[in-house]
């Protein structure tokens, strides 16, 4: 394992310290935690109170979540150990820091650990009479969804949920409205990922699984969870076809005549150039399928340490407010420029 690190057990606090030291205009650390809260003047110099939007999860997915804290997206974010849900006490601190008197919405990725820890934090905040609601993102269509499972995992589509809900919160929406908005967006968000090389958790020291020199794993999660099949490498265009097919199956009536927001998301070690080649194939094939890409992002948004591979997310824009929310101003480390209007 070759990584730029000091003691692996200090990874998370050092990373968060580096983030706030590099970008004090966006985030500051909440004392005695590895959670961050907005530090921009619009927030610190007390503006109109908004509903706080808090997310978090295990580390190793940077820029998620702390990189999306700022005006127009998250109010606070909590970083757990690598691939490990943060603890309730830290989430509770983030809730308190984010609350401006109008309550707090928690955006949780659907993992047992995350759900349980956020639930315990909600209980703690309940004692303080802070109104807290939560939504659970489960966009990973690689996983079978049935009565007999935990439901689907929350993966890269989370960033669309954070952007839209964050923009609505910034626009002044109340907690109840945000819960419904979040649930509606989640229902239309579908993601599938593929890995060329698994991630190496620093404290483990070797890749989570081994792939042959010409193998690809379809349907991987963002914590080295194996996927639904392992096959020989295929060209980008064929990969796009497979992933679009899987996602298209999730939308009643397929892709045709629908309008989507598209996210091509690198897993951490995949060059941006390859992501653009894949995006080219995806957008081309969407066009052939009579579907529209009204919004596109290409880059590393929800990573998995040094995993090689990428995921494709389609969010069907079934509500006319969602595209303006995606294009609304946001000032964060990770979302990029927001002069997106075409």
């Amino acid at each position: 394992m070759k990584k730029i690190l000091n003691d692996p057990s200090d990874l998370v606090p050092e990373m968060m310290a580096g983030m706030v030291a590099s970008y004090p205009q966006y985030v500051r650390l909440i004392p005695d935690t590895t959670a961050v809260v907005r530090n921009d003047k619009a927030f610190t110099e007390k503006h109109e109170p908004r509903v706080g939007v808090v997310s978090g999860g295990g580390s190793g997915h940077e820029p998620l979540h702390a990189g999306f804290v700022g005006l127009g997206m998250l109010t606070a974010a909590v970083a757990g150990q690598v691939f490990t849900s943060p603890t309730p006490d830290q989430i509770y601190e983030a809730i308190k820091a984010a609350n401006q008197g109008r309550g707090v919405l928690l955006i949780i990725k659907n993992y047992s650990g995350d759900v349980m820890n956020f639930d315990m934090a909600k209980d703690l905040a309940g004692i303080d009479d802070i109104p807290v609601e939560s939504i659970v993102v489960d966009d990973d269509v690689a996983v079978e969804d049935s009565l007999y499972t935990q439901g689907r995992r929350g993966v890269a589509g989370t960033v669309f949920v954070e952007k839209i809900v964050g923009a609505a919160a910034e626009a002044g929406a109340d907690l109840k409205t945000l819960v419904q908005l979040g649930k509606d967006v989640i229902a239309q968000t579908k993601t599938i990922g593929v890995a060329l090389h698994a991630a190496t958790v620093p404290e483990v020291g070797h890749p989570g699984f081994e792939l042959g020199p010409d193998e690809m794993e379809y349907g991987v999660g963002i914590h080295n969870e194996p996927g639904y099949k392992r096959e020989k490498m295929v060209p980008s265009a064929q990969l796009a076809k497979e992933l679009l097919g899987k996602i298209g199956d999730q939308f009643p009536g397929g892709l045709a005549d629908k309008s989507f927001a598209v996210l091509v998301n690198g897993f951490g070690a995949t060059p941006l150039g390859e992501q653009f080649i894949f995006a080219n194939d995806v957008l081309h094939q969407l066009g052939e399928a009579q579907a529209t890409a009204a919004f596109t992002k290409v880059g590393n948004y929800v990573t998995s340490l040094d995993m090689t591979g990428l995921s494709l997310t389609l969010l069907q824009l079934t509500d006319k407010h969602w595209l303006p929310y995606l294009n609304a101003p946001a000032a964060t480390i990770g979302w990029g420029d927001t002069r997106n209007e075409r």
Partner: protein
Amino acid sequence: MNVEQVKQWMQLFSAEIEKNKDYLSQLDTDIGDGDHGNNMARGVKAVEAGLAKDQPTDLAQTFKSIAMSLISKVGGASGPLYGTAFLEMAKAAKDDENDLPALLQAAAAGVAKRGGAKVGDKTMVDVWLPAAADAKQGQLNDAVIDKLVAATKPLRALKGRASYLGERSIGHLDPGAVSTGMLLKTLLQATK
């Protein structure tokens, strides 16, 4: 059960986890995300430091100290689950309960409630619930615990990370069940 026994229990459990850290992580690599050993190791270290700092004198305080350490240091799925187990034991002890089977019953029920898992879902609940029932019957011993742990192997996971694997989770021990087995066996040692 008394404070000294609980402290002894935690020492034994801590040593067992340290010894099996890589093994637990390997089990979790097979059907999860490979961190269970590290999570538990972080937890038992925090428990020892917490007990040294809090110096609890009664059973309820002791269990609560352990619960808070686990809840605030482990994270993941096992943090809230093990934390809830000790929190429930603390609540029971506060109501003057110090009978081991009764305490275990409270813990097991708490774990099952927190995670929403049933016996057979291939989680630590597969060990907790039957073990608590056996303890009530005075029939809990190492062989019984080993059998409960081993029984998770052929199952298909329906809760937790392993459930995302579907059929592929079959044929592997559940890591949380294995660490729960260690917890219960060290409990028997500390209280025998």
